[in-house]
Structure formats: structure tokens, C-alpha cells
């Protein structure tokens, strides 16, 4: 093994979080030389990085950045046009490498350059190299797009080569700093919409415990929930590394979502006391060592934690994307998965605190407890509808919300007559019930009108009234595969472009749709920018191909391209976005 020793960070709990955060958001580049070489040979695109630049008279200059300890063969460089004609590459003499088993060959270390003559149509470049003393890569072929007459790269886009924050952390302080940093990021993420759904889930889980709930038990159950959630993130990293796919995205399949929605319905029914959730005695006994008692709730907590991370809150955030890309690029699964695990733990810390200390505030037993359980029953039904909202049409979902709100209102006593001497609490409850009933009726009305947004159920009415001055909103061209993406880029007028990776199941994207795009400053900044939405609502191989093309992990991701269709360095926005950041990225394009 040749893994180098990592340095421990000098001081762990410095106020580095702010600095790290800045690093993440800006994607600041760090010196490549700080790299600790991973034990595995580098992926070939990292060992030998080809960069193409325009030269004089239609020539193109190919430059390879060659990683330390790797080399490129001069003799295996070749270029040919689409019809198979060999093009002569002009190359400087290499270094004679005298290898006993390979004879004398000319190779390049560190960097190599070749000049490609002007050619019409796409050109395919082939090159090959080795890790000195280790491994030889199969030949790499890259196809360069055809040159335009005015030599502008027309139908391709080129991405900025920003390092992810994980690289920077790793280079600076080794694995400990990476883990501490990710724990901190997780903690910050705990206060974003991605994590909010997890609070009612955990609260419902704890409420389901009834009278047996003590602070200790609350801590155990929340602990299990949080560890399961963190493990799901870690597993995500491993799955991403081995399959090259983002497990989280794969789990956004209808089957998985229906299963989980059904699970929430079952949980809700058990909250209404229809039946007690139990597990076979053998399993329960084995689990009692963990601190469980009669019921198999630790398993439930683990299952819920796992599900929550992958299906309920599928947010791609900057740290998550950074860690996944890092794993994909370096193959350093251990560190990547550990970083994601730490991220999950960080996200779970507030949940753990809430679960432990909140436990004592949950009512003990009796009629009140049943009331609380009923509330969570409705919350779980709400979760089920919210999940189903990723698959069903807007009006159907609105109708389901209406039904839920009406039922909740009736359960809260909206239709019951109160005697004159009723106390204030019951009156408040009835008021709440009536409000819920009212909201339910409005939603039902909205559903009948064909509305789809539960927050603006009557929007169809407004839209009819305001259809005259519809010029206000930004309009995105929606694409679902690479061909359409290219077509949208090519069809657009010359000028900068923004590719917004989104999906209807992406919670953060909805927040962006509501808060960022309607912002007047954003509208002004994006004036004249071609807006393309890469829609991953139905996630399939076409979607994956688009992600690969954009070197993105998932929605929400914004890729800003200048007028030459090159991504401006440091402008990419992954995860939660604010209007200010979008404006400043858009200004960088001009």
C-alpha cells in the first residue's frame, strides 16, 4: 500500500466553518500540488487532462496536463476526421524513456502540447499513457466538435474546472478536517427545507410511543433515526462510487415513492388506533438489547431514518454534490462515504436534541395522548399526499389535500355543537377545525378549477384575470435529454445562457421557483440570457446523461454559460440559491 500519511489538523474547532462555507460556494481553486496521492491509480481523465484552445489559422492547440507520476506516449497520439482521414499532429520531441521491457519510447511528463491542423467536421483525438511503474490506461478518445467558419465552438458547451470543496479540505487538513467540516455543513443544512419534513416524522415516531417515552428512550430512538439517516447518506456515496449513479436519484422512482407513501398511510392508521404496529417476537427480543421494549420501534426508527434521507428529503446540496463528485473522481470511497455520513450526522444533531429534550414535553397518557397521536396521524397522511404529489397531477393532489383538511376539521370538532359552558381550549380547537374545513373547501374548489398549487389553490381564477400582462415571468425552455438541450442551446440567440437542473420532486427547486425567479433583480439580471430548464422529473438514462454532460449531481444546479458557451469559473450554484447569488453569477457572464 502506498497511501501517504495524512496530517491531523492543527486545531479542530476554529471558526473555520464560515471560511469553509465561503470556499464551497465560490468553489475556489486550490493548488493541485497539495494533493495527497490516493492509493488507487487516478481515473484516466484526471491523470491526463486534455484542454483544447483555438490557435492561428483555424489550428487548434491541444494541451495535456499530466499528473505527477504519470506520462503520455508521443507515438500513441493521433487525430482523425469523421471520414477516417488521419491528421498529422505536430508534436515536440518527448523524453526518451528507456524501459527494459518497452525499449526506448518517447513520453511526456507534466505537460504535453500538440498542434492540430485546421479540419472540417468533428475530429477524434486518441491518446494513451501510463502511471509510471504501475498501470497503463486503455487509449482515450475524445471527439472535438466541428469548427465554425468564425471558429466559435457552436454546439458544445465547456464546463469550468472548479475543484469541489472536499478537495480543498482534504489538501489542507486531511480527513479529520473533512469530517469535521461536513459535520458542520450538515448542521447548517438542518435548517433548510430539506430537513423540515423530518421533524414531524420523528415527533410522530416518538408520540407513537405513548406513556413509555422517557428522555432516555427519546434519545435512543432519535439516535437510531439519525444514525440510520447518516448511514443512508454514507451508502449513497458507496453506491455512487460503484455504480456511477446517484442512488438517491434512482430512489425517486414511482415504485419507491408509492411504497413510502403507503408506509406513511399505515403509520397514520396506527396513530388513529386502528391497530398496533408490531413485529414478530423473535425480532423484538433480539432488538431489546438496543434499549427497546415491547414494540419493535427501533427498527421503525431505523427504517424511517433511512427513508427520510433518501426519499422524503431528496435535496442535492453543495456539500452533498461535492462529496459525490469527489468520490466519482478519485475513487476514494472511504473518505467520501465517511464525509457523507458526517453530513448526515450533522443534519441529525438538532433532531437528536429535539427528540431527547422534547420527549418530556409530550403529554404522558390518557385522552390528551390520543389527541396528539391523532394530530400526527393527520401529519403522516399529509406526508403521504406530499410524496404522492411528485407523481400525481396537481388537481388530484389538491383534491386529496381538501379531503385531508376537511377530515382534520371534522375530527377537531368543527361540526360538533358546543354547549354554552364550553372552556376556551375546546373553543380554540373548534375554531381551528372550522378553519381547516374552510381551507379544505377552498382547496376542493381549486381542484375543481384545475389548480395545482396548494399554497395558491385559486390561482386559475387569477390567471384568467391577469392573462393580459403575462410578460413579467421568466420563461425557461424545458428539456429532458441531451439532444433537446443542444438544440435549445443552438437555437438560442448568441449570448449567455443559464441551464437550470430541476425536477418537480426537488423540494429546494420549488423554493427557488417561488423566491428566486420572480425576484425583480433576478429578472433584470437574466434579461437576454437564454434560460433552459433541464427537467429531471422523470429520472431515466436521458436524465443521467444530461447530468453527466453538465458534471452535475442532481437538482437544483445552475450552470451559467457565457456567450462562447463556456461555464464561467466559480459561478455554478448547487443546492439552495438566493436571488443575490444568481444576480452576481449572471453579472459575471457579461
Amino acid at each position, binding site marked *: *500500500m*502506498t497511501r501517504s500519511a495524512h496530517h491531523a489538523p492543527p486545531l479542530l474547532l476554529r471558526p473555520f466553518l464560515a471560511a469553509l462555507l465561503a470556499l464551497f460556494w465560490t468553489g475556489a481553486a486550490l493548488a493541485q500540488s497539495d494533493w495527497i496521492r490516493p*492509493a*488507487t*491509480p*487516478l*481515473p*484516466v481523465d484526471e491523470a491526463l487532462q486534455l484542454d483544447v484552445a483555438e490557435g492561428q489559422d483555424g489550428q487548434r492547440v491541444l494541451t495535456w496536463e499530466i499528473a505527477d507520476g504519470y506520462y503520455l506516449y508521443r507515438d*500513441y497520439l493521433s487525430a482523425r476526421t469523421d471520414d477516417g482521414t488521419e491528421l498529422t499532429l505536430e508534436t515536440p520531441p518527448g523524453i526518451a524513456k528507456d*524501459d*527494459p*521491457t*518497452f*525499449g*526506448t*519510447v518517447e513520453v511526456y511528463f507534466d505537460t504535453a502540447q500538440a498542434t492540430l491542423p485546421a479540419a472540417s467536421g468533428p475530429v477524434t483525438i486518441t491518446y*494513451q499513457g*501510463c*502511471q509510471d*511503474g*504501475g*498501470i*497503463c*490506461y*486503455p*487509449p482515450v478518445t475524445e471527439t472535438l466538435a466541428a469548427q465554425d467558419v468564425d471558429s466559435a465552438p457552436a454546439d458544445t458547451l465547456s464546463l469550468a474546472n472548479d475543484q469541489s470543496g472536499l478537495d480543498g479540505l482534504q489538501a489542507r487538513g486531511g480527513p479529520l478536517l473533512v469530517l469535521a467540516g461536513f459535520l458542520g455543513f450538515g448542521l447548517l443544512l438542518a435548517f433548510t427545507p430539506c430537513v423540515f419534513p423530518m421533524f414531524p416524522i420523528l415527533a410522530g415516531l416518538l408520540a407513537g410511543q405513548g406513556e413509555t417515552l422517557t428522555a432516555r428512550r427519546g434519545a435512543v430512538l432519535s439516535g437510531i433515526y439519525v444514525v*440510520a439517516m447518516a*448511514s*443512508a447518506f454514507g*451508502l449513497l456515496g*458507496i*453506491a455512487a462510487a*460503484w*455504480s456511477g449513479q446517484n*442512488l438517491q436519484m*434512482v*430512489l425517486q*422512482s414511482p*415504485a*419507491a415513492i408509492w*411504497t*413510502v407513501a403507503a*408506509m406513511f398511510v399505515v403509520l397514520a392508521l396506527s396513530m388513529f388506533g386502528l391497530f398496533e404496529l408490531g413485529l414478530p417476537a423473535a425480532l423484538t427480543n433480539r432488538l431489546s438489547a438496543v434499549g427497546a421494549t415491547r414494540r*419493535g420501534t427501533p*427498527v*421503525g426508527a*431505523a*427504517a*424511517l431514518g*433511512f*427513508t427520510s434521507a433518501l426519499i422524503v428529503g431528496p435535496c442535492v446540496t453543495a456539500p452533498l454534490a461535492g462529496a459525490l463528485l469527489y468520490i466519482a473522481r478519485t475513487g476514494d*470511497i472511504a473518505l467520501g462515504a465517511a464525509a457523507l455520513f458526517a453530513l448526515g450526522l450533522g443534519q441529525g444533531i438538532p433532531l437528536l436534541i429535539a427528540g431527547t429534550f422534547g420527549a418530556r414535553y409530550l403529554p404522558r397518557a390518557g385522552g390528551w395522548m390520543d389527541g396528539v397521536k391523532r394530530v400526527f396521524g393527520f401529519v403522516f397522511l399529509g406526508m403521504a399526499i406530499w410524496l404522492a404529489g411528485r407523481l400525481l397531477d396537481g388537481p388530484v393532489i389538491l383534491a386529496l389535500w381538501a379531503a385531508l383538511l376537511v377530515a382534520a376539521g371534522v375530527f377537531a370538532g368543527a361540526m360538533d355543537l358546543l354547549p354554552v359552558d364550553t372552556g376556551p381550549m375546546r373553543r380554540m380547537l373548534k375554531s381551528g377545525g372550522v378553519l381547516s374545513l374552510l381551507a379544505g373547501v377552498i382547496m376542493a374548489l381549486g381542484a375543481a378549477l384545475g389548480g395545482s398549487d396548494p399554497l395558491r389553490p385559486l390561482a386559475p381564477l387569477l390567471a384568467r384575470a391577469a392573462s393580459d400582462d403575462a410578460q413579467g415571468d421568466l420563461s425557461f425552455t424545458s428539456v429532458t435529454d441531451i439532444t433537446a438541450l443542444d438544440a435549445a442551446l443552438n437555437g438560442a440567440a448568441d449570448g449567455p445562457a443559464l441551464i437550470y437542473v430541476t425536477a418537480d420532486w426537488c423540494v429546494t427547486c420549488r423554493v427557488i421557483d417561488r423566491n428566486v425567479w420572480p425576484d425583480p433583480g433576478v429578472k433584470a439580471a437574466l434579461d437576454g440570457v437564454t434560460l433552459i430548464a433541464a427537467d429531471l422529473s422523470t429520472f431515466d438514462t436521458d436524465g443521467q446523461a444530461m447530468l453527466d454532460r453538465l458534471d452535475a449531481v442532481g437538482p437544483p444546479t445552475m450552470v451559467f454559460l457565457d456567450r462562447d458557451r463556456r461555464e464561467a469559473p466559480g459561478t455554478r450554484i448547487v443546492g439552495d440559491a438566493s436571488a443575490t447569488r444568481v444576480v452576481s453569477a449572471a453579472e459575471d457572464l457579461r
Partner: protein
Amino acid sequence: MTMMTRRTLLIGGLATAGTVGAGALLLPGGTTSAQELTIDDVLFDPVNPVLGNPEGDVTIVEFFDYQCPYCKSNHPALTETVATDGNVRLVMKDWPIFGAPSIRASQLALGAADVDAYEAASNALMATQGRLTEKAVERTLKDAGLDVEAIDSAYRAERGKWDGLMARNGNQAAQLGLRGTPAFIVGTTIYAGAMSGDDLKQAIAQARG
């Protein structure tokens, strides 16, 4: 030398997902790839000639190319370790990545298997110095006392079988995520890059548990 127990890891990971998820949800079947590669596919390809002890309790697979410098410099250590151990199956998987001469070398070595000269042909080609040309490949085999024309017609007679094997090897290398040659699999552990005799002995001991 690098070690990854990819398969163990992958299986372990999925098993974890299965058990954790089993409480309430099932992972959709679509998460594992449809053409999942089995260990037997890689270690016991019926077409690939076997060197060493065919009944051995540990299998070493090497993905290699007859022009790859580190495959060749590594080869004496490999053959010596296999011979000394006496209980190792050696499966040399042709994965020609250095162009036409490499493909020609693999074709002739595999063709030699049908005239019982696989080991002689393979060893002669592995012992060559420097880069090869198609002429140099044929000369090497002739110098080793082999009948190149007989070998060539043996290859041509079974062209589909041998070309299929090489295509399969390339696909397996891609599916296993191998980055280049040489790549070793000892038991079920994948090692990227050249291995010394000691590395190999240690890997064999580990495969035996």
C-alpha cells in the same frame, strides 16, 4: 499496489440497504444492474485457457496486454509465484489496449491453445522486449519453436470464440471499473497495477483466509 474488495463492499452495501430497509420498505429491484457480472463469469470463463494448477484453490486473474511494459516486467514474478505455490489457477485475460500488434499477439497466443502451445506462446510474447509489430510477434513465436501458420489457422478456425472472449474481457474490465493493465484479481479482491512476488503471495494468503 492497491487493494479494493469491491465485490464484498458492493454486496455488503446492498445487504445493509436491504436489512435496514426491510423494516418497512423494499428497495426497488432496478437498483442493481440487469447484466450483473458474477464472480464465476470473471474467474471461470470456460473459453479462457488456464495456467498453473487448473484444480487450484485460489484463482489469479490478470487483465493484461502483450505490449504493456508493467505486465511484462511483472510476469516473471507472477509465473514464479504460481509455480512455487502449486495450488493456484492462473487465468490470463487478454485485454489488448495498445493497438493492432497487441491484438495480433493475443489472437496468436489464443490460437496456440488449440494446438496445445498456449503457455509456450504466451510466455514467449511476455518475454519480448520493447514495442511489438505484427512481424515481431510472428518472429517471436517462430523463434520459440512454434508453427505460426498452424497457430494462425487454428485461430481463424475458431475466430468467433476467441474474438468473443477478447470482447468479453474488455466488457468485464469496464464493468469492474478496471483502469488499465495490469489489473489483478486474486480470489475476489481487485488489485490495480503491477504486483511484486511478495504482494502476490500476501494476496494469495489473504484469498485463502
